[in-house]
């Protein structure tokens, strides 16, 4: 419940002042990135700095970035990896979540707690052995390394299991008696009822794979196969000292997809990040 701490106009004024300050601190780095991306390099580094581009808005920086580094291909790589991983998360989590919630199986609960126990394992712990596994499979420098190991999620399985457990058993029993099989019962009756959980899961999965950086850094080095977070690093390493405008244009291209999806589906993002406890790293 909102508490009325604000009794007089002065307190109200103070609150708005704080609100503005807060908004400014959060938005300014983005503004700085965007405005630098349409200035020439010399204008970014001059003193005193100007708020807006002085000569003209250099939209051509974007075209130039696309020409000098394969960031277009890298954006496509990121998109492909993200779509595959998200589909994988949703499919494997729905199936296994349903199995754990509704299908009797000896030892299913023990199995499930073993599975959940790995939620606290930091990914860094798996870095070296996963890399060795990839090189044994011959997947180093293949997009498969960014997709296949990530097609499942302990968090997703947990989320969907909870969602299925929250639905009345009778729904399914009625369908099974009427002669539907498990598959039909799951997809016709249960899945439509857990769409919100699926949307939350898909959101988290999108964030997770679009933003992933550490694993691609270790396993992909061919620049045509790199994802966009890596491409941005390369751009920064190549042009950071001389063409800051290009680096900033690259940054805008790298964060834009996430920002757009975030603005469109804010509710699921907040819910997803809050329930998974996944603040950024």
């Amino acid at each position, binding site marked *: *419940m909102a508490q009325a701490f604000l009794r007089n106009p002065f307190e109200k004024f103070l609150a708005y002042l704080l609100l503005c300050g807060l908004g400014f601190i959060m938005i300014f780095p983005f503004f700085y990135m965007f405005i630098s991306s349409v200035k020439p390099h010399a204008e970014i580094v001059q003193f005193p700095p100007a708020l807006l581009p002085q000569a003209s808005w250099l939209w051509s920086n974007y075209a130039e970035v696309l020409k000098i580094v394969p960031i277009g291909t890298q954006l496509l790589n990121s998109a492909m990896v993200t779509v595959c991983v998200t589909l994988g998360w949703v499919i494997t989590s729905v199936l296994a979540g349903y*199995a754990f919630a509704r299908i009797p199986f000896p030892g299913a609960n023990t199995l499930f707690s073993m599975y959940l126990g790995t939620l606290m394992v930091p990914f860094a712990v798996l870095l070296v052995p996963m890399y060795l596994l990839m090189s044994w499979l011959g997947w180093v420098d293949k997009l498969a390394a960014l997709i296949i190991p990530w097609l*499942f999620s302990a968090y997703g399985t947990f989320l969907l299991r909870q969602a299925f457990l929250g639905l009345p058993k009778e729904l399914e029993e009625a369908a099974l008696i009427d002669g539907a099989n498990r598959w039909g019962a799951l997809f016709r009756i249960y899945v439509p009822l857990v769409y919100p959980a699926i949307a939350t899961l898909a959101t988290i999965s999108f964030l997770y794979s679009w933003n992933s950086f550490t694993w691609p850094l270790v396993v992909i080095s061919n620049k045509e196969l790199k994802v966009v977070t890596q491409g941005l690093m390369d751009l920064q390493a190549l042009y950071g000292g001389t063409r800051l405008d290009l680096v900033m244009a690259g940054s805008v291209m790298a964060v834009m997809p996430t920002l757009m999806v975030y603005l469109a589906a804010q509710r699921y993002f907040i819910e997803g990040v809050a329930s998974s406890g996944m603040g950024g790293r």
Partner: protein
Amino acid sequence: MFVTAASFKKTFRRDWRDWITFVLFAGPNLLLFVIFTYYPLIRNFLLSFQEYNPIIDKGEWVGFNNYVDILIQDTQMTRIMQNTLVFTVSVVALILVLGLLTALLLNQKLRFRNGVRSMLFSPAVLAGSAVAVIWLYIFDYRFGLFFQVLKYFGINSPKWLLDPQWAMISLIIVYVWKNLGYATVIYIAGLQAIPADLYEAARVDGAGAWQRFRNVTLPGLSPVTFFLGVTSVLNSFQSFEIINVLTRGGPVNATNVLVYRLYEQGFTEIQNYGRASVVATLLFVIMFILTLIQLRAIERRVSYA
């Protein structure tokens, strides 16, 4: 009811069918999980006792040599542990305190508060690496934003990321900026879950604003604070991207933390998988102990008002 042979057979047949369905539904997921989580977890543990030779793809057992190398001989290890502690404690404390304050502000009936909340949360959904690139230039000591603002007021700017004293502070600023929205959103939900009649009762008893905050709001928020504390410790402990982009553990290890050390040992020039696995095991053990302590504390202290 009597169990006849026929009914037993029928039940058994249904069970048997269920088992197959279970395996078909959960199987792919579990298989991926065993291959890509359980197996690497065990392999990491084994690797920490081996000297790995990448050319013949084989490890040679060397007992506790790697552990001795990392825990006893590595002179930087104390520094790294200290850094990890300083980073984790600072960002968690700042995120909790600032998150609560912003949540209190955004919980007031103010115009634009939803817009500010969206802005506040937006860095939390962006890639850490991309956010860090922007900050790399805000911190630049020759032309960065901070440098220019300070110069405008006639103050000499520190060299931020290049100065061993300021580098850690810079990382903490970026991390807090990125994750503040996460804490705020969760605190707002927590504030809204506190029943209004508790405040009413306190007011009737003559409690002032501060007393209501102290005796109603804070205890009511303790489960949320606890959840946030747990997740923030675990997340910040694993923070890699920001460090990799902004400082690479430098200058002179001033910002080197456990996760970065792991990467350094395994995937930079040094390339010693055995030692990297020791750091990984250390990381795992610390996370495990933290999780246990937190689970214990959850049972005892947290008041679910």
